[in-house]
């Protein structure tokens, strides 16, 4: 009896929490379809499917350019972090060399330096190199990360050591082993890491804000801020803009959810 009550309570709690957590996204979707009258009435639901606000958002700000920029930057950053991370992780996990521990500590040390604390110096460096308003500026400071190195190292360490020994005996070179045996075996971990990096890069705000000031170099997040600044009275196109930039990240999340969760949590604390 008592058990049944607990179970009903759990259902009710889950439903309430789920509604509260998802409602800002649904509300955003609804407002993006509303007429001005509905906005003033202050309801939650919109009565029609209407794309006018999306059209207006696209007129006010070149969202397709922003999306193109963000895709170029996020995909390159993801690719860069995985390549640099996998290579370094391979050396740290499969090779023996002098100074391995010291270099690994150095890698650890990079985690101590938060990106926000060095962002001004990085900005000045990019300016000195004359790279403001370029894709290079948006990409290179994020082309490698200690997080990626650790994650890939974790994955390589889980491979059975016998494979490597057998390859050594057969005279398989390191790079061939890395490229055609080790990498395919850690594909799931690489996928999870890739989704995580992509989401993070897609959602970056401060760095793109600093290094771009021409409209056609801006990324989606800054574009949304611009739209919000331009439209201070009518929120509907801003909500439409939010939906446009949310769709790729929600898609990436839902598609990669399972891998993402196991990948993110496996390398952390074992409770």
């Amino acid at each position: 009896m008592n058990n049944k009550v607990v179970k009903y309570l759990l259902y009710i709690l889950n439903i309430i929490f789920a509604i509260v957590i998802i409602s800002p996204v649904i509300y955003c979707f609804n407002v993006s379809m509303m007429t001005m009258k509905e906005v003033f009435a202050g309801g939650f639901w919109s009565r029609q499917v209407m794309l006018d606000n999306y059209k207006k958002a696209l007129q006010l700000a070149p969202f397709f350019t922003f999306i193109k920029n963000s895709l170029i930057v996020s995909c390159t950053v993801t690719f860069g972090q995985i390549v640099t991370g996998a290579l370094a992780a391979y050396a740290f996990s499969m090779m023996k060399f002098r100074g391995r521990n010291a270099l690994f500590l150095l890698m650890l040390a990079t985690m101590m330096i938060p990106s926000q604390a060095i962002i001004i110096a990085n900005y000045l460096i990019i300016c000195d190199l004359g790279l403001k308003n370029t894709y290079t500026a948006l990409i290179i400071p994020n082309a490698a990360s200690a997080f990626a190195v650790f994650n890939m190292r974790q994955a390589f360490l889980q491979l059975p050591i016998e494979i490597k020994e057998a390859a050594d005996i057969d005279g398989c070179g390191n790079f061939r082993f890395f490229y055609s045996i080790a990498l395919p075996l850690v594909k799931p971990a690489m996928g999870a890491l890739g989704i995580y990096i992509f989401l993070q890069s897609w959602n970056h705000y401060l760095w793109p804000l600093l290094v771009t000031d021409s409209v056609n170099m801006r990324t989606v997040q800054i574009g949304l801020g611009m739209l919000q600044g331009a439209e201070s009275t009518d929120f509907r196109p801003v909500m439409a803009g939010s939906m446009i930039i949310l769709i790729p990240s929600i898609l990436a999340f839902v598609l990669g959810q399972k891998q993402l969760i196991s990948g993110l949590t496996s390398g952390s604390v074992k409770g």
Partner: protein
Amino acid sequence: MRKKSLFRVIEPYLYLLPAMFFFVAFLFWPFIKTIWLSFAMTTPLGAVSSFVGLSNYISIFTSHEFRNSLIVSFEYAVMTVVCSIVIGFILAIISNEDIKGKNIFRTIYALPMAISAAAASVVFMFIFHSSLGILNKVLGTHIGWLTDPKYALGAVTIVTVWMNIGLNFIFLIAALQSVPMDLYESAAIEGAGFFAKHRHITIPCISPTLFFLLIINVINALQAYAQVKMMTQGGPSGSTNVIVYQIYQEAFMNSRFGMACAESIVLFLILMILTMFQFKLEKKVTY
């Protein structure tokens, strides 16, 4: 033969080279540059004009603005971290039970981690809007959530908590699933109820994860920027002027890069102490 062995010796370093190049160029070098600039006066373009010793540090610690931003950041961090972890924990507990549709619930609970600070900010700006916002309509009030110094930091906190729930939930549910089942079984035999079970078994078992999340959340909270920039611009009257926003203002509005770098170093020191805590912890709990 000799050539091959030379290649063998340098080969590992070649694998490390790309990552190390980026770390040196965009992490270590700017870090040194930040320290360097924190002792200097700069031109409006960021070039060093003269060295002034500790005077930047002295002026930031005597400036009301910077001290205020430390306090604001601290309050903000405490509020977001406590709420994010507590809510994440509740969600993990209630969706870890054997109920129908739990996968849907879990997806929804994890979803906010995919949402950017910019998008979350504009949605909540409308929810918090003083005349059109649904929050005031539901409550029947006319509170200026983002324009009243009493409420603004709380409003920014709510947005951040919402964005943080996903990550906390994911780590906590993974931790819950690693708690040995037989502990619960023996508790059930002894007749422990729902709350006793979680208080005496769950919380002690997942305490390493809780501590890990505590540190991660504090570090993230101290680096918050986008939601403040978009929702309140640090106002009203400095009530949401968190430390990273203060640094941004100092550098890009006042063009005082030296002061901004000194403030960055203070931020770095705070975060370093926290990160060291975390490394110590991880060594202790990873068997």
